[in-house]
């Protein structure tokens, strides 16, 4: 059992309706998407992912008042925030997180801007325990950078979130570097959310587009593995040495074997990347954190502990529930799978370190008040 404080680093919040977003769009874009006949308004989300036969959401998370899972704060508060000593829950959007998958880069940029304002206005105002990701449309990196800087003064807009990859280059490519420059300047980490392979990407996995959700979800980590290798190979951390990276919703037990291979490749191929100053694993040790969910299930508990220890999981893992998704990990379940000596760090202190907070910066359940 773990009864201590918790920072939940992946909580998906959603709009109850499309209309909820309209007031946050500019007049021009509101007119652009408007209902001009029987077809209704233009779609605001990208929906070309593979269908989950259960649905993507835990069945009990649909609000009793109606609407999508994650769209009602009272339900989220009851099911997530008040069930444990949650000091902070970091919001990561739902289907809206796939703005990077829109074909229209200008519309995607406007949607990201509107969604961030919606998140601040409708959610951060509801509970001081909530913090939000800054969603950016990576199609236009300069405008994404401007969006990051727009939120620089709001300490509860805590990280820059990337999901879909609009181009056939992983996120380390220099085309995306204006985003990282703005993130470093404003002291925000980059958070790459897994699963983008199932949406609007060049290929859902290495080797080709898979056809079943079963395949896609098994191979979920492939996407973030590609982005991580790209980040280091293109020298993102050499160029932006204060930047931190969080990989969300892609598990973590795959990391040791990737790093062993990555270091080995560097020894023979250094001449292709002479700007790298250290072994890839050394960049990872300094710049990378990972969320726990979905925690890989090993036949014996000590096996997963051993795997996670290879990358100092006690220091590098941050707890995430992934609420309200169908495969969310409960606090006590995670507590039962990792060593007790890791609990306080994984559930709380590692996230404090990652985001640069102290315990005093965060509200407690007792002090929680509507802002």
């Amino acid at each position, binding site marked *: 059992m773990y009864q201590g404080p918790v920072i939940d680093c992946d909580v998906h919040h959603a709009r109850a309706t499309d209309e909820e977003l309209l007031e946050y769009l500019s007049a021009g874009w509101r007119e652009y998407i408007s209902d001009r006949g029987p077809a209704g308004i233009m779609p605001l989300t990208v929906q070309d992912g593979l269908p989950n036969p259960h649905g993507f959401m835990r069945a009990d998370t649909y609000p009793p008042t109606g609407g999508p899972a994650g769209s009602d704060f009272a339900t989220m508060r009851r099911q997530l925030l008040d069930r444990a000593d949650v000091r902070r829950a970091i919001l990561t959007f739902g289907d809206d997180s796939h703005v990077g998958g829109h074909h229209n880069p200008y519309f995607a940029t406007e949607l990201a801007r509107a969604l961030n304002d919606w998140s601040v206005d409708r959610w951060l105002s509801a509970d001081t325990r909530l913090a939000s990701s800054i969603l950016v449309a990576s199609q236009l990196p300069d405008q994404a950078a401007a969006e990051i800087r727009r939120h620089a003064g709001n300490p509860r807009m805590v990280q820059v979130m990337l999901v879909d990859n609009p181009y056939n280059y992983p996120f380390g490519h*220099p085309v995306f570097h204006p985003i990282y420059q703005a993130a470093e300047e404003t002291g925000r980490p980059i958070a790459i959310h897994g699963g983008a392979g199932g949406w609007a990407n060049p290929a859902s996995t290495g080797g080709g587009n898979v056809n079943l959700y079963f395949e896609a979800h098994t191979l979920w980590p492939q996407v973030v593995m590609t982005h991580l290798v790209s980040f280091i190979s*293109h*020298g*993102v951390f*050499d*160029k932006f040495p204060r930047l931190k990276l969080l990989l969300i919703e892609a598990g973590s037990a795959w990391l040791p074997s990737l790093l062993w291979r990555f270091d080995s490749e*560097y*020894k*023979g*191929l*250094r*001449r292709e990347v*002479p*700007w790298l100053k250290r*072994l890839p694993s050394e960049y990872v040790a300094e710049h990378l954190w990972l969320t726990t969910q979905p925690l890989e299930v090993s036949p014996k508990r000590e096996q997963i502990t051993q795997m996670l220890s290879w990358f100092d999981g006690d220091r590098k893992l941050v707890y995430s529930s992934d609420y309200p998704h169908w495969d969310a990990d409960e606090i006590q379940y995670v507590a039962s799978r990792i060593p007790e000596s890791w609990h306080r760090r994984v559930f709380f202190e590692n996230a404090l370190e990652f985001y640069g907070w102290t315990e005093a910066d965060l509200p407690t359940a007792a002090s929680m008040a509507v802002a």
Partner: protein
Amino acid sequence: MSIDVGALTEFAEGAIRTIGVNGREVGIVRWNGAVYAVHNLCTHQSGPICSGVLSGRLTAASPGGMDLDLSTPILACPWHGWEFDLRTGHALHDAQHRLHTFPVHVENGRVLVDIGPVSRDTAAQRVQV
């Protein structure tokens, strides 16, 4: 003990030539006015390092750059591409890995190499990865 391995003029600038010295294969390198001697054994997987490519060192001040430092002689193993700085023997990726280099000097136009006693470390170096 210094061993005369030939006249300096027998070794071309910017090249490596492997010769036998007291039963050991030693690569003699002339680079940028200096002479180096290195055991023909990569400490990674015991490859014939002296059959590899000799070059300057590729460097970059920032990501995407590609500059050539000709002052540093680099020998890349033909087996796995590991690069070593011949001035020290150290691998570029990790100073813990190093080739066995020998003291060498030029006297009266002759190249003299001190291969010393057969190193007991060599066998251990072979299995380091």
